């Protein structure tokens, strides 16, 4: 099942296309990270997926073919928007009650227990909580709805490193315990390495690269060698991006496995998610090789084999 499936999806604001010809399928059971520069269309894509806005072109379906924004989609998806909007003048307990009244399912006990663990006072006004506590409250409200998909738009933007860590730990726990799929957008590449196992690089309103993180990392590596020889290899190998120094050059290349011959005098080493993402972001024209999205069933059978 694909939690988000976009087909030639486009959204235009006035004369500007925020998202254009976007085709992607995010399989369930992942923490999928949506990365890209400012204005790449991350928020637009997420707004389309949660039904806050309607597409100008193409289609977007969620939770295995459900129309985005339909009653079933709203019921199964919890969304935490950028800056975690809450009613500032309502107390924490009122926010719980509010969310409980607006949804078919709401696990009040879970929400209270989670807030208790986080030492967030129930009587305090939401507006008086710290930024980290507000983000945690918004996450708690979302998780207590028992969603099948959790969508987070820039959840870490406003948080300090400690709060970021705590927030993502909360997301990962929910992922492990509840089996909820997660799609998040973020600028913070370093944090993603730890949490994301599916990556979508969005650039200029369309998908540049998408795939499972392990798979993407296995299909790329970095070659380090004399800068003078860099150009010679750049033509022969599938170079995505080259970092050239005085003496040495680093080439990020696409490979078909570890069997590719390494030229003499060059060293090869695996690529990190941050390096990989940065390389693609610096080369907006490069298109990543993405394997066809696989469903959870295929993955399960692989694991249990």
């Amino acid at each position: 099942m694909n939690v988000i499936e976009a087909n030639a999806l486009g959204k235009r604001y006035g004369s500007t296309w925020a998202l254009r010809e976007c085709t992607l399928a995010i399989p369930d059971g992942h923490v999928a990270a949506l990365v890209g520069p400012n204005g790449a269309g991350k928020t637009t894509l997420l707004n389309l997926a949660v039904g806050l806005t309607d597409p100008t072109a193409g289609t977007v379906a969620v939770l295995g073919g459900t129309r985005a924004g339909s009653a079933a989609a709203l019921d199964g998806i919890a969304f935490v928007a950028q800056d975690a909007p809450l009613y500032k003048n309502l107390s924490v307990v009122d926010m719980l009650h509010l969310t409980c009244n607006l949804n078919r399912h709401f696990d009040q006990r879970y929400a209270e227990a989670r807030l208790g663990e986080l030492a967030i006072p129930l009587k305090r006004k939401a507006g008086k909580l710290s930024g980290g506590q507000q983000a945690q409250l918004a996450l708690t409200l979302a998780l207590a709805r028992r969603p099948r998909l959790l969508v987070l738009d820039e959840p870490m933007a406003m948080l300090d490193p400690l709060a970021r860590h705590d927030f993502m730990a909360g997301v990962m726990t929910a992922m492990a315990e509840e089996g909820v799929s997660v799609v998040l957008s973020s600028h913070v590449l370093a944090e993603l390495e730890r949490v994301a196992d599916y990556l979508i690089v969005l650039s200029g309103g369309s998908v540049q690269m998408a795939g499972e993180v392990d798979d993407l990392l296995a299909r790329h590596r970095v070659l380090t060698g004399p800068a003078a020889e860099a150009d010679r290899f750049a033509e022969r190998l599938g170079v995505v991006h080259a970092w050239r120094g005085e003496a040495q050059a680093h080439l990020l290349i696409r490979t078909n496995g570890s069997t590719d011959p390494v030229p003499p005098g060059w060293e090869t080493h695996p690529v990190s998610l941050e390096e990989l993402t940065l390389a693609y972001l610096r080369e907006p024209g490069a298109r990543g090789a993405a394997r066809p999205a696989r469903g959870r069933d295929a993955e399960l059978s692989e694991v249990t084999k």
Partner: protein
Amino acid sequence: MTALSTLTVPARPEEDASLRPVPWRRMAWVIWRQHRIALGGVAVALGALAVYVWIVGLQLHHAYVAATTCNPASSTCADLITNFNFMNHVLVGGYTLQLVPPLIGAFVGAAVLARELETGTFRYAWTQGFGRWRWTLAKLVALAVVVTAAAGAISVLFSWYYQPYLATGHQSLALSEESPFSSALFDLRGVAFAAWTLVAFAIGGLAGMLIRRVVPAIVATLAAYAGLALVAANLLREHYLTPLLTSNVNVPGSAWIFSQWWTKGGKFAFSGWRDAPHGLVQLCASVPVGPLGKPSQGTLAQCFAQHGYTQLTSYQPASRFWPFQWIEGGWLLALSMLLIAVTVWVVRRRAA
């Protein structure tokens, strides 16, 4: 890890195929919790206004009883009548109270959607399971009913307050008298006051959705309301029913008179006293002179009539007050429902 964890997913509530929506009644608590401060403010403001109107109303009613029951021959009676007539200024002939509907409508109605859009909380509210168009409809309808009911209640008090001015048959005492159609009074009484409050709220709701910011939406609501109220009072209202035509010279003071003119032999002769032909005025110059040294209209009219002229008056009789109220209330209700429907449609169509 992620794949294995799926094997131990706790039992999720059964997804029934029909997916019954979240019940409407759940919005009751939501609306109360989110708008209780605004509604409380309206209640306090209307409560204070009601106490004030009640106090000055008691004085007015006492003055009226004193003025109508005194012995016309006594010297104090003239003072009592003057006393009553001057009380008219307390609520400035009704125009102050005309501000109540647009203020309620703008402050409650414009905030409903504009505040959510301005603070970004619509991204929370409209992604909950309740659904955004149902959320909008529930809020607008419930709040509309509450503010309309409150306005209807206070307009009963206004009706009582203005009663002495509308009691006919005291012209001989020279007491102030108002037509129930007077532009200051018509929409303070009956169903019109509640209907105008409703339409102000509905304008506010739509303005809030289109403008997306609270203060500009309030300003736009007040402007749109003022325009609508002026058009209704000055252009629309007189056409609700075809005016009556009478040749009776003594049209009651409670009637809403549009025009008067004279005919002779079934043909238009002249419109006002001043346009009367010179010869006719000369003929009637000898009629008895009234208290102010001029011939009074009644005797002039008799003289004109003797020379074959007939005065015609087109007017709306006071007895049409309630039909006019229902007509105005009806189209305002229809307009309000249309505005609310358009607002819900806009929310449904384009959110972010």
